[in-house]
């Protein structure tokens, strides 16, 4: 890596760290790019050579966080045991636990998914292919293990699970719910969906 490139990378990292702290403590809406630059000890201009907007910074902060989340999932998923609904419960519980470490940041991320200023390169909330894939694999393996009906429509089930997952965050946004509360609600959603896709022979949970 050239000196210039590594300098740019260092600036990028400093901006992201500063932004993460400010978004979490002061909130996304009230934080300005100028404040982020000042905390990162770089010029406003150099922030804008790396990021197109505040929304873009938020999107990058969240993308970096997701890398850590999926590293954690990659470690855990192979060790999951039990029925398909139970495995799904564990996967979603890990997500809730992870995102509620910085609830405020995460809620800003959700709100920003509808923002006008997002650049095309941003990865807004709800369009993370990784989560979709992990859930899909889990249900598909359930067919192989025999507790999910073979005629299950994978896309539909995954889609319904993700809708439940995403909107259950409303409990955090509106009722200050913690990860445990949200996981408990999600567990019940999974149970109800599973009533519909469980293989006829499988013992009901």
């Amino acid at each position, binding site marked *: 890596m050239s000196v210039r490139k590594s300098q740019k990378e260092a600036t990028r990292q400093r901006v992201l760290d500063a932004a993460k702290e400010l978004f979490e403590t002061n909130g996304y809406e009230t934080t300005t790019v100028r404040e982020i630059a000042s905390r990162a000890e770089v010029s406003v201009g150099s922030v804008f050579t790396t990021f197109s907007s505040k929304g873009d910074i938020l999107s990058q902060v969240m993308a970096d966080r997701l890398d850590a989340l999926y590293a954690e999932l990659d470690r855990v998923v192979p060790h999951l045991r039990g029925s398909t609904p139970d495995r799904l419960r564990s996967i979603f519980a890990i997500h809730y636990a992870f995102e509620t470490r910085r609830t405020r940041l995460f809620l800003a991320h959700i709100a*920003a998914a*509808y923002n006008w200023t997002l650049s095309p390169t941003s990865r807004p909330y709800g369009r993370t292919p990784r989560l979709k894939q992990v859930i899909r694999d889990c249900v598909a393996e359930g067919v192989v293990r025999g507790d999910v009906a073979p005629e299950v429509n994978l896309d539909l089930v995954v889609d319904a699970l*993700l*809708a439940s997952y995403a909107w259950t965050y409303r409990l955090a*946004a*509106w009722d200050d719910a913690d990860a445990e509360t949200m996981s408990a609600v999600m567990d019940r959603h999974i149970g109800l969906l599973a*009533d519909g896709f469980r293989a006829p022979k499988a013992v009901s949970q």
Partner: protein
Amino acid sequence: MKHVSSNIEVTGETEVRVPTRRAIAKQQTRAKVLSAARRLFSESGYEGATIRDIAAEAGMSTGAVFANFTDKSDLFREIMIADMEALVEAMRDGVSRGRGVDDTLLKLFMAGYAFYKSRLPLARAAFGISWQPDQGQELRELPPVLQLQDLVSEQLTQGVERGELSQEAEVKLRSQMLFDCYLANFQEAIFGGWSLEALQAKAKDQIRVILAGARRG
């Protein structure tokens, strides 16, 4: 029934209070500001539209706007109330034409997507706001918003009463999941440019999957 009762009001001999000219002018100003605000929120989003822009769009001073509305969130709330009330009506109408739980729910969903088809940017702004701490709470507690959710669970309750769904259908939870899917599909409508037909196909499948475990028999 509706026609009957409105006829009675018109022909009744109750004293009709004639609004003053001033009150009419105030009403007109409010309507003008609201439609300007609606246009700007749709064009630039909630954050992007300022009171100053809205005043300019309505052809009046910011002072005149503030004489009628406390702030920007007041304006947005007024727009949301009007839309949500119309939306509930559209959904009730859809429900009245439905046959059976699945079809009724589908018509309810589709009434929503059709209603917002021409105002997706406003829906987008509303979704963004609904996740914000203070304003989000205000939005979700609007009476028509609560009615909207009740409408979904009413359909399930009636499905249970008619014997289409089992007594153990967990109506509350299942209607929440249906509502989650209804909302989640706006992502496809807003960002994916999905047609009403595509939304209908998806919603139909979702309803089937969510109700699958609740069928009787």
